[in-house]
């Protein structure tokens, strides 16, 4: 079975632009969470979606938004990019609350 897949693997944008990152969960998993990991730090929670509804939101500005589709895949959108948004964006999926989250390989975003 395929694991969590994310696309693209790398992305270079300039300040002020918009970006969309995509995530496909493990088959059968209904929950998707997004994390931001800057160099030298642990991942920081951005959003969690379960059955297409937002279940949790971290301390990120409104420039960050996400959604989950009927097939449980998810998109993370970031508007008006800042240099500080440069990071590895990780997606994790699980069967639901209390279950293990499995991570994808991430999207490396560089904002110039």
């Amino acid at each position, binding site marked *: 079975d395929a*694991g*969590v897949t994310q696309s693209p693997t790398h992305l270079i944008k300039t300040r002020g632009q918009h970006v969309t990152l995509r995530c496909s969960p493990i088959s059968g998993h209904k*929950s998707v*969470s997004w*994390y931001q990991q800057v160099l*030298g*730090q*642990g*991942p*920081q*929670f951005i959003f*969690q979606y*379960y059955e297409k509804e937002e*279940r*949790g939101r*971290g301390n990120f500005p409104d420039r960050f938004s996400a959604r989950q589709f009927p097939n449980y895949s998810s998109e993370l959108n970031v508007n008006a990019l800042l240099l500080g948004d440069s990071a*590895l964006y*990780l997606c*994790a999926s*699980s069967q*639901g*609350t*209390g279950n*293990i*989250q*499995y*991570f*994808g*390989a*991430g999207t*490396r975003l560089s904002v110039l």
Partner: protein
Amino acid sequence: EDKVVQSPLSLVVHEGDTVTLNCSYEVTNFRSLLWYKQEKKAPTFLFMLTSSGIEKKSGRLSSILDKKELFSILNITATQTGDSAVYLCAVTSNFGNEKLTFGTGTRLTIIP
């Protein structure tokens, strides 16, 4: 706010040595503690701990949780160069979502 502190921040040992990685936490309404190994991008799951005093083992790796003193340790015996990675500790709470709160990680380097 939930908090996870890992120590040491980095560790360099020789192949064959035994290492102990530490994780202390503060979390409201604790549900579970998880250990992940991150080599390049995707954190890979190692253990999930929910009960005090019960050791979990997988090959040369083992982990235990102390809910009274609010810490966990991850032991790796007979280390190999393939164990070189960042080891992340994370906690979850019973607040209706799957948010993982991570520590900054311990960077382990194994010298052949």
